[in-house]
């Protein structure tokens, strides 16, 4: 039997409607949209134009021309940051402002830019990961060339006040980029109202296919491309257009807009049921991320004294992800929880639940049962649980360090 899928922050299945829309581009309508001397090329161009308009509508962009297709949001984030920075190559001192809990696509790009002598400033956050707007504004100076702050966090689901950030950015005339990958289809975003200049999109996080995304680039924003060769996409991103992917992204955007209100309410109900069930039936539990300003489909929970992977194993009828070192090749616990000063020990005890379209109330009830049993069994095995019950302060003990 298939596992119940509760890892929708990692990726989502392709909607049947989306796949259906893609099929012509994968079969008979296989032309290259750059081929303007025959009907195959023309048909491909129409499909791409239609999809561009669908994506523009999802975020209320003024014109479809402001949508630049990329291979995904990792590329979109790279293009936004590197593109803006490299367009200001003439400035000796440059800085950009971001958050320590951004996706690696932003953080690793920032590290790369640091090597090119761009100063990276991290705005302060509250313990839930919400940006401190005063601190953000204080960090802006005349050499600030970009603010990059995500709309929603993929681990803890915390939402940022993007409209407030947009207002501050506009006031200081600094371009504002937001990675909206997790928020799209779950929260309403309007690039005009929210004063967003650049916005990253990934299809496979909203029931579209993998390998396709987009960067919204407000008219007037200049970017140096990271991929050269032929000058596609308004000279900002070269390469033969991924027509089936683009059609899929377009359809996914259309559906996301259409179903947003209904689906986000449904997910919120399921998430709350999950949260309440866990809190009612399991003790020594903590919720990571903001109590209310969070994605309707996200829950991130620390089950103290139980290592995350071992708990996932106990729930292996369900596909889940953890903030645990033991599920990643790097053996580092979640950098997001770390940045929010969650002690490493507790970060290792955290699970992420990412709900989605396929999930039902029954799934929620199954996972609560599994968690309750699993936590109980694993705590009985846990030397830390014993210590805690005996009143030992776990943080106070001098532990041996066996991992280097």
């Amino acid at each position, binding site marked *: 039997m298939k*596992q119940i899928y509760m890892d929708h922050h990692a990726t989502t299945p392709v909607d049947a409607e989306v796949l259906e829309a893609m099929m012509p581009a994968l079969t008979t309508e296989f032309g290259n949209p750059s081929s303007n001397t025959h009907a195959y090329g023309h048909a491909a161009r129409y499909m791409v134009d239609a999809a561009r308009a669908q994506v523009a509508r999802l975020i209320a962009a003024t014109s479809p021309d402001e949508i630049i297709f990329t291979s995904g949001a990792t590329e979109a984030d790279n293009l936004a940051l590197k593109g803006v920075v490299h367009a200001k190559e003439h400035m000796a001192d440059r800085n950009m402002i971001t958050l320590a809990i951004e996706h690696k696509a932003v953080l690793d790009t920032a590290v790369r830019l640091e090597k090119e002598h761009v100063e990276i400033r991290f705005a302060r956050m509250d313990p839930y990961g919400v940006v401190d707007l005063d601190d953000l504004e204080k960090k802006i100076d005349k050499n600030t060339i970009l603010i990059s702050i995500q709309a929603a966090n993929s681990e803890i689901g915390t939402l940022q006040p993007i409209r407030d950030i947009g207002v501050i950015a506009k006031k200081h005339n600094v371009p504002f980029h937001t990675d909206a990958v997790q928020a799209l289809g779950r929260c309403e975003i309007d690039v005009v109202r929210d004063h967003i200049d650049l916005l990253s999109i990934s299809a496979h996080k909203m029931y579209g296919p993998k390998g396709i995304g987009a960067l919204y680039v407000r008219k007037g924003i200049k970017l140096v491309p990271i991929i050269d060769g032929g000058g596609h996409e308004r000279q900002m991103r070269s390469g033969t257009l991924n027509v089936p992917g683009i059609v899929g992204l377009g359809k996914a955007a259309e559906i996301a807009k259409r179903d947003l209100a209904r689906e986000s309410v449904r997910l919120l109900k399921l998430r709350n049921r999950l949260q309440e069930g866990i809190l009612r039936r399991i003790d020594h539990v903590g919720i990571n991320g903001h109590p209310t300003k969070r994605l309707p489909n996200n829950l991130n929970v620390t089950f103290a*004294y*139980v*290592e*995350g*992977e*071992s708990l996932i*194993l106990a729930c*292996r009828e369900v596909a889940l992800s953890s903030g*645990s*070192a*033991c*599920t*990643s*090749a790097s*053996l580092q*616990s979640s950098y997001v929880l770390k940045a929010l000063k969650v*002690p*490493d*020990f507790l970060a*290792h005890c955290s699970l992420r639940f990412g709900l989605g379209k396929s999930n039902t109330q029954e799934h929620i009830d199954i996972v609560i049962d599994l968690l309750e049993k699993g936590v109980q069994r694993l705590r*009985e*095995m*846990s*030397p*830390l*649980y*014993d210590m805690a019950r005996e009143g030992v302060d*776990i943080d106070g003990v001098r*532990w*041996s*360090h*066996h*991992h280097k």
Partner: protein
Amino acid sequence: MNIWDNYTEKVMDHYENPRNVGIVENANGTGVVGNPACGDVMKLTIRVVNDIIVEAKFKTFGCGAAIATSSMVTEMVKGKNIKEALEISNKGVMEALGGLPKIKRHCSVLAEEALRAAIADYRQNERKS
């Protein structure tokens, strides 16, 4: 194939039905190794009679591999004398489990270290008494 296909069936068996969980009553050797901040802590208690480990139990906070290696090492030491027990290596534990995924190898080190710590503790207790 196992749904959790990083692990062998033996590992899964020891994770699901761990042998010798708990604290040995009247233990004369205790080892606690690992670090909660690194995601694993193992406590191994043993009772040694006439140089023979007659009982061994564990409590472990850690991933599936950590629990399975803990369980396996308690099985392996039982009935062995101290010298034989000290010959048990992390490689031996891994082999007994049919192997571990690469990124989990460090877990088996934990079991070896706990065993050595418990034996060292036993020796110290012997010397004291």
